[in-house]
């Protein structure tokens, strides 16, 4: 007797919309670029998508917990500028890995700052992280005012050309992300995350440490943003303080089309990972169709608006019928 409901569909199969979109995008991309599944093409695509996959996974954790992190792009920028200025084009591998650790520490610290304001001072997530995003981008500009610097090419090539068993490195990273997520999902913390995102007050009454759960989501997001920063630096090989700025909206879009509700408590991390890949492919399609690049922003914005509005529109239509 239960009718089809969008909510229920999204609840049961959070990644449904993302996979549908992925299939459509893959088909179009395949028509435009018939060799896309060839080993080299696949790898060159996946290494471009990987930073966004990492970023979307972190964003998904925050959004599941009922928050949002607008500052992830800023954290990517900080990591990129730290690496590009401190390692340099002629730096040694030891130096590189040291600063990778330093920049990951910076990402965690930035996440902890967000978490402190939001979880402990109870400030609004969207405003807080919007404000800190300026702080972080500003800090990145302070480190590297003009684009430049970089990392040694041989280190960048590790990222670009590692294909164990002929599969792109990104596949292994995705597998690790999903395994870790599946583990977290089945721990007590995973349950807390959904409870806090779903109904923070009920969670509190049931003795869930709500404050710490929220804090942890921002730290996790900061950590993932730092990893994304390391990945994008190795991909580009150079430094630019503005590099992370356009990534924030994309990461939120990836989460939304991945079936993770912006209201929190519904969805997962797998959907957003698929969402990030889908958005990457859409970007490919746009560049292959030889249309102006501003279409890319337009298409992304359209996707996010449609994905956000769809449940509301369906509800509206349903209410009209009654």
């Amino acid at each position, binding site marked *: 007797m*239960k009718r089809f409901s969008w*909510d*229920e569909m999204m*609840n049961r199969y959070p990644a449904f919309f993302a996979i549908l979109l992925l299939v459509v995008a893959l088909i179009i991309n395949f028509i435009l670029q018939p060799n896309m599944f060839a080993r080299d093409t696949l790898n060159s695509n996946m290494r471009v998508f990987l930073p966004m996959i990492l970023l979307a996974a972190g964003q998904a954790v925050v959004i599941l917990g009922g928050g949002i992190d607008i500052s992830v792009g800023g954290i990517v920028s900080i990591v990129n500028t730290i690496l590009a200025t401190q390692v340099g084009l002629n730096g040694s591998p030891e130096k590189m890995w040291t600063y990778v650790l330093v920049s990951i520490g910076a990402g965690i610290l930035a996440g902890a700052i967000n978490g402190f304001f939001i979880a402990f001072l109870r400030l609004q997530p969207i405003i807080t992280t919007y404000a800190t995003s300026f702080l972080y981008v500003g800090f990145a500009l302070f480190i590297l005012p003009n684009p430049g610097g970089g990392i040694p090419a041989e280190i960048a090539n590790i990222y670009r050309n590692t294909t164990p068993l002929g599969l792109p490195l990104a596949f292994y990273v995705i597998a690790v992300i999903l395994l870790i997520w599946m*583990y977290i999902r*089945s*721990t*007590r913390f*995973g*349950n*807390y995350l*959904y*409870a806090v995102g*779903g*109904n923070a*007050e*009920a*969670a509190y*009454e*049931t*003795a*869930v440490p709500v404050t710490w759960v929220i804090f942890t989501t921002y730290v996790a997001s900061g950590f993932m943003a730092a990893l994304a920063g390391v990945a994008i630096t190795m991909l580009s090989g150079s430094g630019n303080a503005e590099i992370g700025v356009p990534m924030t909206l994309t990461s939120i879009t990836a989460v939304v089309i991945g079936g993770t509700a912006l209201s929190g*408590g*519904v969805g997962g991390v797998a959907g957003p990972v698929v969402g990030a890949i889908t958005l990457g492919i859409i970007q490919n399609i746009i560049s292959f169709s030889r249309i102006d690049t501003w279409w890319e922003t337009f298409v992304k914005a359209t996707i996010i608006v449609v994905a956000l509005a769809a449940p509301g529109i369906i509800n509206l239509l349903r*209410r009209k019928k*009654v």
Partner: protein
Amino acid sequence: MSVSLSARNIVKRYGGVIALSDGNLDVHSGEVVALIGANGSGKSTMSKVINGVVVLDGGQLLLDDKPVRFSSPQAARKMGIATVFQELSLVPKMTVADNIWLTREPLKPDGMIDRRVMREKTEALLELFSGTFKADLRPETLVSDLHPDEKQIVEILKAISLNPRILILDEATASLDSRQVERLFELVRRWKAEGKAIVFVSHRMEEIFRIADRYSVLRNGKTVGQGDIKDITEKDLIQLMTEKEKVFQFTKTTIAENATGLEQPVYLEVENLTTEILRGVSLKVKQGELLGIGGLQGQGQRDLLLALFGDIPYQGIVRIRGEVVRFKHPRQAMQKKLALVPGDRAKEGLLYIRSILENFLLPSWQKYGFPLKMKLAKRDALAISERLSLVMAGLMAPVSSLSGGNAQKVVIGKWLLRDPDCYLLDDPTKGVDVHTKAEFYALLTELSQQGKSILFYSSDDDELIGLCDRVIVLHDGKIRAELKGASLTKENLIAASMGVSNGGEA
């Protein structure tokens, strides 16, 4: 497992309002104590004191004869006190099992939740209520997919899964059907035999007599009677809950009969009004009538008023002066000259941080043209504030600077400026001081003499009896009784509120 809990001379204040002045309760292993009281008697405050949701201002809590102090619900939970909340504490988008075992999930050695054990334990718990709910209530069902009664069952199971020594059932039967109540009572008897102590808060008299061993009656924040259920009758209990001393002298309004002695015409006619809570309510209100709406809180009074004001969707027919109307938006109701004084004035009735002037004129700005004729607006607002003898620093002061009573005057004042034909009042005297209450009563009388129709829901039974000619009592979304004339007594009103069958004329 032996346990005893005593609450002695409990005092609890919310701001200036005293919710409990002398609350007492004793409960021991192996017994069910019913906590009884009319609206606003302090019974929900009392249960919140025991389970640590509110911190008491005075008096003593003794657990096993040792003084205790609970700073949070968790502290009380650790001492073995569990509560079934009426407002459910469940996460909608999580499964039944996840909700019941949240924070107490069985873990495997590797830190993962042992879902198999959790499902089995949940199934064992659900077994307690087996046969009383539909098959779709399974451990893996999402709580948001459940019906209200099933959610209530999950809430009960969540409390009992703590294996508490003291279990507080706060109106836990309100959304259960008779079979489920029956099963709950079987379980309560079993828990009783196991040595648990149970506090049963309910407004259903019949259930109290079926399950309780002892009773404790609250009236106006004071415990006025305790004893064994077998020594008391339903009638005596209602008597106990009924206050003797009257604070006010009310002057009744009788519908102004016109010179020829003809009856006033019917203003509002409602047929079979149904919403999520209301289950078919029909009523008629004459022009100039002050119709009282009584009953315990949350029996559909709010829905009735909101539906009439076009604020929530409904089924049924509403006629105003014989013409069928179907408001889909409060604006349409306002155009038909209806006014609503909502139950939560801070949230729904006022723009709390904005000025008194703005609040007064909010429904009527269009009268003042473009650009706004501010002088005229101010003069009108001042006139209305004088009429209501509003105590304020000035029209530009924010509403948040006013006392509860004066803030409520602003809510009524903003409608008076529009001169509506019909007022829908949702418990307008709640949290209002005695002096302002008296002014309200005078105003209501005046309005009805001017021929305005008023639907007046109040949680204060004395008000209803003192002011209204006719009171309808809602219970479980239906009109339980219509009281007027000689049948309009406090005993009948309370009896009908509690769902006692012989209360008043049906």
